[in-house]
């Protein structure tokens, strides 16, 4: 039986002007979850609450099958989290920061650190604060990988990062997933990352999970069809996301169901085309 690496149940966190949850989420080994949603939808807050950087108001969180006490740090040894939390140490050089962080992790690999520093051309003598936004992202990313984690929680890891390094990060994440036993939760705004890294997609809106599905369901269920006609029954159908009347064109999130309806109405389908992931994500985030 596959046991989940992380499981959240009815987790909430309230602020004056924003509240997260209650939400449930499960991360299974071998799976990359893309966490998407517009700015301010609660992606970063969710990751911080999961990491216990922010205290939740209520709910249960299990890591590696177990609910941990707030003094326990053992579970954090196996989680790599990148969420822009190093600013407080900005006065340190990257090398000093490494010395500090590596001490927290018995499983830290200096060899891997050296390799990655070279791969991403990081200057260890530079003060963290003085590094560009993209370089800071790369440094955080490197830190999350060097202590042999089983689970990565990454908050927009490639934001501001140059194209070549983005490609390298993608490669490193795919390699990380190669043995099929680890998992990643990736908060991102980059369609390409969702397309080439993620297996499942979780959409957040105003602190709540409004959609959660396997990525292939998009390809199999969403479609744009061109039809001979379009009746009121079709226009008002809940699986019709968008329609135009002249020429008749329908976007649906459930092709099979809609085909049944259309056949009953004696309308013919002239053409069918799958939607791109990008189009669907826009519909999902902007509904």
């Amino acid at each position, binding site marked *: 039986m596959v046991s989940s690496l992380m499981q959240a149940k009815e987790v909430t966190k309230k602020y004056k002007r924003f509240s997260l949850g209650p939400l449930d989420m499960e991360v299974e080994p071998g799976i990359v979850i893309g966490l998407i949603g517009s700015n301010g939808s609660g992606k970063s807050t969710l990751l911080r609450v999961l990491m216990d950087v922010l205290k939740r108001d209520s709910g249960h969180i299990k890591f590696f099958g177990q609910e941990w006490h707030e003094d326990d740090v053992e579970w954090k040894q196996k989680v790599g989290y990148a969420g822009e939390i190093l600013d407080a140490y900005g006065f340190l050089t990257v090398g000093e920061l490494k010395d500090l962080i590596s001490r927290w992790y018995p499983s830290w690999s200096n060899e891997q650190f050296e390799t990655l520093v070279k791969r991403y051309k990081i200057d260890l003598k530079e003060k963290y604060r003085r590094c560009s936004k993209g370089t800071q992202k790369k440094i955080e990313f490197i830190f999350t990988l060097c202590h042999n984690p089983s689970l990565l929680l990454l908050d927009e890891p490639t934001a501001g990062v140059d194209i070549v390094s983005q490609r390298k990060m993608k490669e490193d994440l795919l390699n990380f997933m190669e043995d099929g036993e680890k998992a990643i939760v990736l908060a991102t705004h980059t369609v390409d990352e969702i397309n080439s890294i993620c*297996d499942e997609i979780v959409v957040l809106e105003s602190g709540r999970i409004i959609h959660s599905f396997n990525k292939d369901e998009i*390809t*199999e269920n969403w479609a744009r069809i061109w039809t001979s006609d379009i009746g009121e029954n079709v226009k008002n159908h809940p699986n019709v996301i968008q329609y135009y009347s002249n020429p008749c064109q329908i976007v649906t999130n459930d092709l099979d169901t809609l085909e049944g309806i259309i056949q009953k109405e004696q309308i013919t389908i002239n053409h069918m*085309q799958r939607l791109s992931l990008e189009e669907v994500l826009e519909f999902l985030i902007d509904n």
Partner: protein
Amino acid sequence: MKIPIHISEESREPIYHQVETQIKTLIVGGQLPPGTSLPSIRALASDLGCSVITTRRAYQNLEASGFIKTAQGKGTFVNETKNMNIEEAKDKIAYDALEKAIEQGIQVGCTEEEIRTIFREIMKNNFSQ
């Protein structure tokens, strides 16, 4: 390592089946000879923009029908041809392709006789000396 397959935007076929059929076609057609190393399920999913659940399913089916084999820790390879039913696969691939073509003909309004004429002409172009 990339292999030349792609997911159709216009097909109703499930993705795992498209991947399975296209890899089978490449193997039967000799483009992927026995022993060729195939991308991992993760790498293939990344190239195709689908999930590992889909690529795993395609590989499991291909393995069950003897087309590929997985060696623990070494990766996935094209199997020796003696382990697969090539004749049956050839028939199936050709049959499905013709069926699809005929369906398209019907969709644009061809009559049976028109489709027969087209079929005969294509056959003549390909098989007459």
